């Protein structure tokens, strides 16, 4: 769909007046954010997950290649139960957090970097904007998962593949979000004033446009990351994930392959909860942050 006035203001970005007083605005945002309980909870969950990923070796030993107690339900020895090779599910989920967060972070960073650059360039250099918005539209209208599957199958499953594939299809969304904000900024008087001072577009972009779109970028980081988690898990579930590292999608994939999904409910439940926790907290964070920084919605 075209990115013109008919596009609804998406939940994840609202184009509104940019505050020129950046410092005070962020402080006000934080104060408003703190008051929103859901946002705080989401932040806590997110930080907890990041902590788990970083502290994985301390929390659980790396899952062994096999164990003797096969397909056991959760118990005192195996908090989350065991899988079809007797491996400890708790360990798998803990170590899977590393991989899932890594993929989400890397993919979204690449997507955001690329998407932002494209959006900002398009907003600043109006001639390119037409072509850019057409490409973005086209990419957004394609069914992305089948294409990701095709590429992953061609190149072969590995962590790098997943990251690049997910990033390649996440950047248009970022561009869409950032572009509307960037367009607003570029139209502002102080940017015109800056143009009088210098002919270097890079300087203007770096000094003025980018800081102004930063709040939108922050929002899209979390949104893109959460979508990346779902895409990566989806690919792993279909068997296109990295078979040498543990990830949440891989746990589900192996449960399915071994026929255990129908009887070992714990194999589906715990990784699903992990995925849900990560994505939910990211989504809530972005909403809370969005609400907090928008002066209009602060007045409730």
């Amino acid at each position, binding site marked *: 769909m075209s990115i013109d006035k008919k596009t609804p203001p998406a939940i994840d970005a609202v184009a509104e007046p940019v505050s020129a007083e950046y410092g005070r605005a962020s402080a006000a945002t934080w104060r408003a954010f703190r008051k929103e309980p859901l946002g705080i909870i989401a932040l806590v969950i997110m930080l907890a997950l990041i902590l788990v990923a970083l502290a994985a070796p301390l929390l659980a030993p790396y899952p062994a290649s096999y164990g003797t107690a096969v397909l056991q339900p959760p118990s005192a020895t195996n908090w989350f139960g065991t899988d079809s090779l007797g491996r400890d599910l708790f360990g798998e989920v803990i170590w899977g957090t590393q991989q899932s967060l890594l993929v989400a972070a890397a993919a979204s960073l690449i997507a955001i970097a690329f998407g932002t650059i494209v959006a900002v360039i398009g907003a600043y250099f109006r001639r390119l904007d037409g072509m850019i918005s057409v490409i973005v539209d086209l990419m*957004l209208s394609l*069914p992305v998962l089948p294409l990701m599957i095709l590429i992953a199958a061609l*190149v072969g499953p590995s962590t790098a593949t997943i990251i690049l594939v997910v990033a390649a299809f996440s950047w248009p969304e970022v561009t869409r979000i950032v572009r509307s904000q960037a367009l607003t900024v570029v139209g502002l008087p102080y940017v015109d004033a800056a143009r009088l001072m210098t002919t270097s577009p890079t300087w203007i972009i770096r000094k003025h446009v980018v800081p102004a779109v930063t709040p939108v970028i922050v929002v899209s980081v979390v949104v893109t990351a959460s979508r990346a988690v779902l895409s990566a898990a989806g690919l792993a579930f279909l*068997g296109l994930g990295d078979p040498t590292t543990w990830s949440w999608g891989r746990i589900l994939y192996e449960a399915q392959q071994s026929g255990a999904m129908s009887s070992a409910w714990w194999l589906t439940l715990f990784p699903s909860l992990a995925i849900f926790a990560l994505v939910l907290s990211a989504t809530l964070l972005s909403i809370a942050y969005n609400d907090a920084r928008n002066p209009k919605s602060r007045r409730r």
Partner: protein
Amino acid sequence: MSLASFVLRRLGRGVLTIWFAVTVTFLLLRLLPGDPALAVASPNMTEDARVALLEQYGLNEPLIVQYGLYLWQLVQGNLGVSFTQSIPVLDVLIQRLPWTLLLTGTALVATVVIGVPLGVIAAARRGKLADRVVQIIGVTGQSLFVPSIGVFLLFTFGLVLGWFPIGGAYTTGTYGAEWYLSVLSHLVLPATSLMLIQLGSYVLTMRSTLIDALGEDYTVLAHANGLPARRVLWKHALRNALLPTTTLIGLQLGFLVGGAVLTETVFAYPGIGRGIYEAVTQLDFPVLQGAFLMLAATVVVVNMITDFIYGILDPRVKTA
């Protein structure tokens, strides 16, 4: 702008999108590492058949010639031959297409039917408990992982409660009215899974656009004119909120189709999505390519339909 030029513009964009999808597929297979011959010639083929096929696709020619040949094949409806089944890809996919259409169509309709009232409730009772609940439903919905939901529904309602059948699109051996009924009962669980992941963003968007619409000038004017609040809501604000959410359906369609791949896999639903899953394990590239193109074309067509509806609803688009 007139309706006619609007229609033309949309058609043009639709064709452009399909062309884009085709080109992307072509470039992917030619430019990615690996043997591009993999994409058309099965490794199990006899050498003669393989050489013949490679010549047909001109894989020894310069890229631009290959592209021309590829487009020419497509226009003739030749999507290649499946590696595993040795029959044309088009034949493989064409019988699966109706089921995917049925599944995604039902999920879409259910999303709108359930999403609109929920969004309205949330907007009308903004800030109150009902609004909170709807927001929670919305955010939760956006965070669901389709296979998990599918397995959960299958297990709970299919096995434990036994309310719905497991797997397949219909019960073999039924005819006439009984067949239609079995199609429906096999449709419920997969369509529900798909709907649940769509519902979240739809409801939230509905809610926020409706809230904005309620704050707009024309709404205030309507209130000022003494129109009852409910009438304002339903007749004016809602209709205008429907515009962007119609657009949203189109935007989300690509995502929905992706969800269909995972759903059909879990539920053994014989659509294109499941065709993709089976083709992936065998690295049956012609089928994967063809499936992607077919799905892209579906998305484009439905997008055009929603845009036409949008064009009719939007008073800014004048009829000729």
